[in-house]
């Protein structure tokens, strides 16, 4: 089990307070959790509970107000490099073709950056393979705005993966999609993860999505967000849509739902 490996990401008593003018909002309180290398975790909770904040803290985009974040054993003080990120909004650049969008990380992350001109053809082929693996083979020359929402989100995942990051941050990447596309992308996401075994943090509202994809699900409380429940998902992989109708799966989703309902009460 990947979860038994050494911790890659370690959050120790991390809190974050947003300050707007004189008003202070405690977004996240005393979060302590550790993510093993190659583990897929999901963070669920009521809206506004600081899920996205947690993600920004792990990647160093925000400095914690108190506590410490460690990645690969080192304290995070600035944005850590080479993380793959995918948001609900695909944020593809409309002036680049889909292929050039996917190649973007290779223009920025070392050592690809230095070799980019020389190895352009090789990288383009890599992008094309990745596109094919998410069912977008041959769409590289299209502009993002010529693609449907689901196709844009697939391209977005490709962009997050092209540089083979060790850590993937997924902030509700399937949130804006219709139910069928979403479930299809769960399958693709799982497949990519089984192939590459990156460490993933998925923030989501969708409990079924969390249980389907994650090794461990963290439930957060209402603001200020605290981790109130940690649920290990012992369902064997690969999980399929059939799995989601099995009693064990349904029981887990149920238990998570119960816990979140307590937060809303």
């Amino acid at each position, binding site marked *: 089990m990947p979860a038994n490996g050494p911790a890659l990401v370690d959050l120790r008593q991390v809190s974050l307070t947003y300050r707007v003018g004189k008003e202070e909002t405690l977004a996240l309180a005393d979060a302590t959790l550790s993510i093993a290398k190659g583990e897929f975790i999901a963070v669920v909770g009521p809206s506004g509970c600081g899920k996205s904040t947690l993600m920004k803290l792990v990647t160093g985009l925000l400095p914690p107000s108190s506590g410490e974040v460690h990645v690969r054993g080192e304290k995070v003080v600035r944005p850590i490099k080479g993380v793959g*990120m995918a948001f609900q909004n695909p*944020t593809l*650049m409309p002036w680049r073709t889909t292929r050039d969008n996917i190649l973007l990380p290779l223009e920025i992350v070392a050592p690809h950056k230095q070799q980019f001109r020389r190895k352009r053809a090789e990288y383009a082929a890599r992008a094309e393979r990745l596109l094919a693996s998410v069912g977008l083979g041959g769409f590289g020359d299209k502009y993002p705005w010529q693609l449907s929402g689901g196709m844009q989100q697939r391209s977005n995942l490709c962009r997050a993966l092209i540089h083979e990051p060790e850590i993937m941050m997924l902030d509700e990447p399937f949130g804006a999609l219709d139910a069928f596309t979403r479930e299809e992308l769960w399958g693709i996401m799982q497949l990519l993860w089984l192939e590459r075994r990156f460490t993933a943090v998925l923030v989501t509202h969708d409990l079924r999505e969390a249980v389907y994809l994650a090794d461990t699900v963290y439930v957060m409380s209402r603001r200020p967000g605290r981790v109130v429940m940690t649920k290990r998902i012992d369902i064997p992989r690969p999980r399929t849509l059939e799995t989601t109708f099995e009693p064990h799966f349904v029981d887990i989703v149920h238990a998570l739902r119960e816990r979140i309902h307590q937060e809303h009460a």
Partner: protein
Amino acid sequence: MTAGTERALRVAMPWLAMAVFLVVWELACVAFDIAEIILPRPSRIFAVTLQRWDILLAFCGETLWTTVLGFLLAIAGGLVMGLAIGASPFIYSGLYPLLIAFNAIPKVAIVPILMIWVGVGATPAVVTAFAISFFPIVVNVATGLATIEPEMRDVLRSLGATRTEILTKVGIPRAMPYLFASLKVAITLAFIGSVISETVGGNRGIGFLMLSASARNDAATTFAGLFAIAVMGVLMYAVCALVEKRMTRWAFRGELVT
């Protein structure tokens, strides 16, 4: 009406509207017996235009090159300043209020000062055209940069992109449609700038031509100058619109997917 005739009609509409306008003008002058010194008839203006074609062309050329030179300088300066303001909050807070103050100064007021500094001639016209068209370019470029989606920025930062990389990969391409949109406004303003300068203190250009013609009570020539400026303005606007479409095809995405 078929699609073909509808499209033809849409192309013809501005010309038809102009023709109707000129005919009404002509008829009104005849019907109300308006003196030429107050409002010359369009046919008379047209005749004068042909008659003085050489002079008009030479003076138009003068105005055109001062305008275009000032405009090009404004693009260069506006781009640099806009990028600086949009990229750095410090430069923004330092320079933006000054820019607004500078923009609030009527440009007519700076022409006499310019004449003291550089004398009469083409230079004040170039500088005035620059000064008046600079502001919209700066504001638009800065806006383009400042409105980068925060998520986009996060994606790049978490990849380890430097500020310069964020600027070149996202900022500049994203500011381009804003820049080109501002050029259409800026070129018209540049014309206003150089004509103002020629009118206030010039010895050349269409503005000077109009001023001296009106001093001779030659209303027809004054109007001919007015028409010439309008024609140049429309032409340069069209050039800018064409460049805009060429350079930022992606921003017109709706029109491309056909």
